[in-house]
């Protein structure tokens, strides 16, 4: 090694500065600075706990109280039509949640993805695209109860009946802007070179989009869509406005009232009776498990996607 460095010299190691003080790197910060740094870090850590502790409390509370109630009978049997009665079940709400959320997804996801494709692949700079983008931003902020009021006014009043489909419409309106924005973000991440390569091979925009761009962005879009589904499944306000109430399973979205887990939690939680409250916990447990599965799977997909991109 040393032979490579022919001119490293014997150099004196001077360990005191010209005024005679020894050099040192241990000089301490003033107590004020050290305290300020420590206090700031402590406050940040405390902030995290201020959010994490309630989360643990909620999950723990719902799981202990609700986990006890939930079994096969709870998930399948009809809802007792008296809040006072103790016992299962939540069957109609489970079916309602799955059907209504599923129908909403079928409407919102294709529409949202197409809308985003238009915004990003056809006219990202046009004024029309800017207006649509602004509108989706505004729609993201529209409170869910307002969306419920809206669907009531344009749908329920028109057909004179509260149905599961009306609920699905409201949820679709809530999901739509989320799907559009996340899809557009994902399309932005697809490298322009991929599009150019496809275009250079003579593919038209639709073919490039369907065969190159969307597949490349698929994991991200899937994850965004799943987060939107998770959020929709937990929505309550629009459901209680437009689907009415039922105690029997109703598998027909277009006829008759319907109900969801979220709506049942709301109705049962404000009752003073043990039976109703236990059912509220059970429904909350079921809903949280459902929503968390969707959220976690979505995060796993997007984190794998990110790793792939790197």
């Amino acid at each position, binding site marked *: 090694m040393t032979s490579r460095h022919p001119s490293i010299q014997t150099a004196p190691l001077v360990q005191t500065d010209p005024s005679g003080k020894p050099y040192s790197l241990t000089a301490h*910060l003033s107590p004020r600075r050290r305290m*300020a*740094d420590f206090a*700031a*870090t402590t406050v*940040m*850590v*405390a*902030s*995290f706990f201020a*959010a994490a502790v309630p*989360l643990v*409390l*909620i*999950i723990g509370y*719902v799981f202990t109280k609700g986990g006890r109630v939930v079994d096969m009978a709870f998930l399948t049997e009809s809802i007792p039509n008296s809040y006072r009665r103790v016992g299962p079940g939540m069957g109609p709400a489970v079916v309602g949640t799955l059907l209504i959320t599923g129908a909403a997804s079928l409407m919102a996801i294709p*529409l949202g993805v*197409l809308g985003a*494709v*238009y915004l990003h692949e*056809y006219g990202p700079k046009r004024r*029309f695209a800017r*207006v*649509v983008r*602004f*509108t*989706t*931003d*505004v729609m*993201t*902020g*529209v*409170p*869910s*109860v*307002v969306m419920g*009021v*809206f669907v009531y*006014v*344009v749908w329920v009043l028109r057909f004179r009946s509260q149905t599961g489909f009306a609920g699905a419409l409201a949820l679709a309106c809530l999901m*739509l802007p989320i799907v559009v924005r996340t899809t557009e973000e994902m399309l932005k991440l697809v490298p322009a070179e991929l599009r150019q390569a496809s275009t250079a091979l003579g593919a*038209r925009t*639709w073919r490039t*989009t*369907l065969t190159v761009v969307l597949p490349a962005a698929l994991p991200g879009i899937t994850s965004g869509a799943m987060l939107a589904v998770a959020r929709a499944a*937990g*929505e*309550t*306000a629009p459901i*209680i*406005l437009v689907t009415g109430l039922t105690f029997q399973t109703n598998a027909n979205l277009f006829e008759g009232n319907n109900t969801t887990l*979220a709506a049942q*939690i*709301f109705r049962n*939680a404000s009752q003073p009776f043990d039976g109703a409250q236990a059912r*509220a916990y059970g429904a*909350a447990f079921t*809903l*949280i498990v459902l929503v968390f599965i969707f*959220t976690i799977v979505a995060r796993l997909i997007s984190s794998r996607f990110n790793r792939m991109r790197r």
Partner: protein
Amino acid sequence: MTSTTSGDAGSSAVRDLKSSDRGAVVDAGFRWLAFSAAVTILVVLGLIAWASVNRAWPAFAQEGIRFVTSSRWAPSADSFGALTMVYGTVVVSTIALLSAVPVSIGIALFTAEVAPRRLQTIIVFVIDLLAAVPSVVYGLWGILFVAPNLTGVYGWLSEVFGGWPVIGPLFAGGAGSGRSFMTAGLILALMVTPIITSVSREVLATVPQGEKDAALALGATRWEMIRGAVLPHSFGGMVGATMLGLGRAMGETIAVALVIGSSYQITSHLFASGSAMPATIALEWGESSGVHRSALIGLGVVLFLATVVVNSLARTVVTRAERRMRGA
């Protein structure tokens, strides 16, 4: 095509290049499909505004400006002044933001500047879950766990601070049932924390590394670096994040409906029960008809306008802050 090809072949090649083959038709169709999807979004928002105003008109016509200035909400007497609910929404949102903003910014700074990478993933995961919990579950937890458990604390606060000047009126008047402005505000704080945190994190990510390095290289401690280089840069964006949180807090319905206690009053007492605009819609919808229902739809319209204004402002602030950041 080279010049040696015959005229015939040349023109057919030109025709090939121009031809409206199937591909072009499909492309036009696909483009049209995507375009109509985009239009649908505009139509939906337009319909919301038009149809809701239309249905709310009877109430607006009957009450006029009193709809938002009168505090007498009495469906049985056909009188609809929503001031108490406006007041409730303002108070509850204020409590929520005052508690959530410092916590959210703290978490965002912790993830962006302090926590090691593995811990960052955990924190982001926790915040994701916090955002994933449905609002009705927050409400359930609020009404059956938080409200009864906080009455003790409220009672103590009321006793200790009730007699104080200035802040006394906020606390004087006992603990109540626990279903109150305060409880609703605290539950809301939890619910808006994820959105404020995640927008703040995005804003922090745009702070130039060069300035952070410069501060550290000048012998700044981590906190001095945050104060000197990070916060001035991200202030605008954090204001935007706060406003997005406000938009969310104003519109939150179910959790507030469960824990605010539903009474129509304007009081400085934070532990008293009250009502908020979205909660009132959800709670009274089932038993309403006629002008009463119009009035509820009217509440929706007011709420819609308020959130549109707040959210548009917030978006503008965030975009502008981010643009300035990139420009600098």
